[in-house]
């Protein structure tokens, strides 16, 4: 009894998110160590919007990965949305009209993957490997490697709309989404279905869950987030270009995995992903401050990814056996 009590306490502490939390601390310490200009909340806040778009997608991606699927086409979809929206606006459509269309397009792009995966039962990894290059390809076909800009004043610069004069809008959105989605995952039955589908699909089927339907919803959700992110980047940059967010899918997957979500599905948390998002932002910011070359940054992040996965794996194992 005594022992089990200790166990449960230990369990509370040694949860998968722990590993990323450790890194959260490390990244702050390391950041302040390597650069005096680092610890400046205003500055950090102002750099966050640059990554928020990926962060938002990462949230929906967490759901998908908990359900045991993966989508490599996320960054490409983001780009395609922003490019199509830009083209539509250029062709004389009003921005008010473009926004819903952009969101809708995101939804469609997500569902396209979802339908292919659920209908053909082909691993999502390979399906989305295809759509990844297809979506970006389409964006390229659409506007070559030029760029489209010149959007209405009110639309451009979402990252410069501040809440309480310090917190940029994208971050507000990100935090809100994190909270809402975490609640849905942990407190509602839909959340349970997602977890169930990911941990043991067969059992889910026998427990009267439309596995495919759940997955479809999640792909749709992801698509929607891609739509939001696409429009956000359009607003932040005030331009669309086919090369925007190249390789973003890696950053996103990195965030999700860093957050302690199991690649095999069945376990994960939005808080973890949000933390991971912060860690990535902090690391990138501090490393950029000392003008560390991006390739070296990749090295650091790649290294961190592997370490965290191993650690999370250990923690998960610990959680399973009591």
């Amino acid at each position, binding site marked *: 009894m005594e022992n089990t009590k200790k166990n449960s306490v230990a369990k509370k502490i040694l949860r998968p998110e722990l590993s990323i939390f450790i890194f959260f601390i*490390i990244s702050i310490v390391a950041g302040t160590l*390597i650069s005096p200009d680092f610890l400046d909340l205003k500055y950090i806040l102002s750099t966050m919007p640059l990554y928020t778009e990926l962060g938002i997608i990462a949230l929906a991606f967490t759901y998908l990965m908990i359900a045991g699927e993966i989508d490599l086409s996320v960054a490409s979809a983001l780009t395609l949305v922003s490019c199509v929206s830009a083209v539509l606006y250029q062709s004389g459509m009003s921005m008010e009209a473009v926004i819903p269309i952009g969101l809708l397009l995101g939804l469609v792009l997500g569902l396209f993957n979802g339908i292919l995966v659920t209908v053909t039962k082909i691993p999502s990894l390979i399906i989305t490997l295809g759509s990844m290059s297809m979506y970006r390809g389409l964006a390229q076909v659409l506007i070559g490697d030029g*760029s489209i800009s010149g959007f209405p004043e009110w639309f451009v610069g979402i990252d410069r709309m501040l809440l309480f004069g310090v917190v940029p809008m994208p971050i507000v959105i990100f935090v809100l989404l994190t909270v809402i989605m975490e609640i849905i995952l942990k407190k509602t039955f839909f959340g349970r279905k997602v977890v169930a589908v990911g941990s043991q699909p067969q059992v889910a089927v026998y427990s009267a869950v439309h596995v495919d339907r759940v997955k479809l919803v999640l792909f749709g959700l992801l698509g929607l987030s891609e739509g939001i992110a696409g429009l956000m980047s359009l607003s932040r940059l*005030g331009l669309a270009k086919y090369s*925007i967010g190249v390789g973003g899918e890696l950053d996103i997957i990195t965030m999700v995995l860093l957050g302690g979500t199991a690649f095999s599905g069945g376990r994960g948390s939005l808080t973890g992903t949000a933390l991971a998002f912060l860690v990535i932002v902090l690391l990138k910011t501090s490393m950029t401050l000392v*003008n*560390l070359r991006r390739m070296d940054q990749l090295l650091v992040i790649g290294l961190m990814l592997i370490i965290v996965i191993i650690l999370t794996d250990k923690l998960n194992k610990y959680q399973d056996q009591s």
Partner: protein
Amino acid sequence: MKRVVIAFVICLALVMSLVGCTKAPGSGPVESQAPEQPSAAPAETSAAAEPGDAKGLHVVYIPIQTGNPYFDPISQGLQDVVEAAGGTYEMTAADVVDPTAQIPLIKAQIQKGVDVICISPTSVDALNDVCDEARAAGITVIMLNDDITGNESHRDACVIGTNYEEVGYRSIEVFKDIMNGEGDFVVISATTDSPFQNRQIEIYKEMLAKPEYSKLNLLEVVYGNDEPEKSLTEAQAAIQKYDTLKGLLCPTTVAYIAACQAVQNAGLEGKVLVYGTEFPNQANEFLKSGVSQGAILWDTYRMGVVAGELCKAIVFDGFEIKEGATFNAGKYGEAVISAKNIIYGGPPLELTADNVDDYNF
């Protein structure tokens, strides 16, 4: 316990990798290429060069991309001048050619409060806001090698390698001589939307309209997207398609080397002539083996030096940038500011089998 150990290991690993990387920042310590500190340098500059009195000349250069050799000489030039003047020089760049990638880099420099930011912009319009932000923070923003055409108001000045118009006219002239004024040729460009490329092609066409060029016949303009494999395939296709093809004109370095390889592969050295923009070290073999009859470029190192001198002038003697004003460009003498605050680094640099060995970049 085991977990604690692991956690510890992580911390170690990360911190170490971080430190390890910071040890090799920017382009690392490189021996100066500019041998003599120009004697013509004005007194106050040399005074400023005294260490200790480095009243914070802090210059950061942000090229388009890391690992792109084109920018190395530019960076070198900047570095030599700035460090000779006792200032601090840093270079940082993104790993992908993504217009958004440069923004956090610039933000970081603002946060650090450097004096001058030199940027080779990835996009003509993605940087406006962040540039304004920088200038509002009292930082001089200089476009380097490329201008943000149409958004000139968002930067203080722009240093480009040479008058690119001149390069265009010069290329087609030389090309005509190589072709003995007659024959069919194909232009292999980068992408359909690259301003520089399109301007060059416009100039070619403008010249071709003239009577003395009448025998020169532009068959087609193809685009290699600046990818080696793609450019190569395009070049091969061109050679395949046109029996009468006599020349390949390439306003981009990737296409130039691809063209040379295509000609070699087809065994048409000397029968299909190649001319275009290329670095000495890349063109070297092809010029000597007679695959290519010539190449044109601008002295990128010189461009860097001029930019560096400009930074010095601005920070040390509050040099004011306006059209017509001149400043001392060190060993390259006076540099003048022309329209739209553009400064030309120097005249075009023409490479032939004979002079290519004189340059190493």
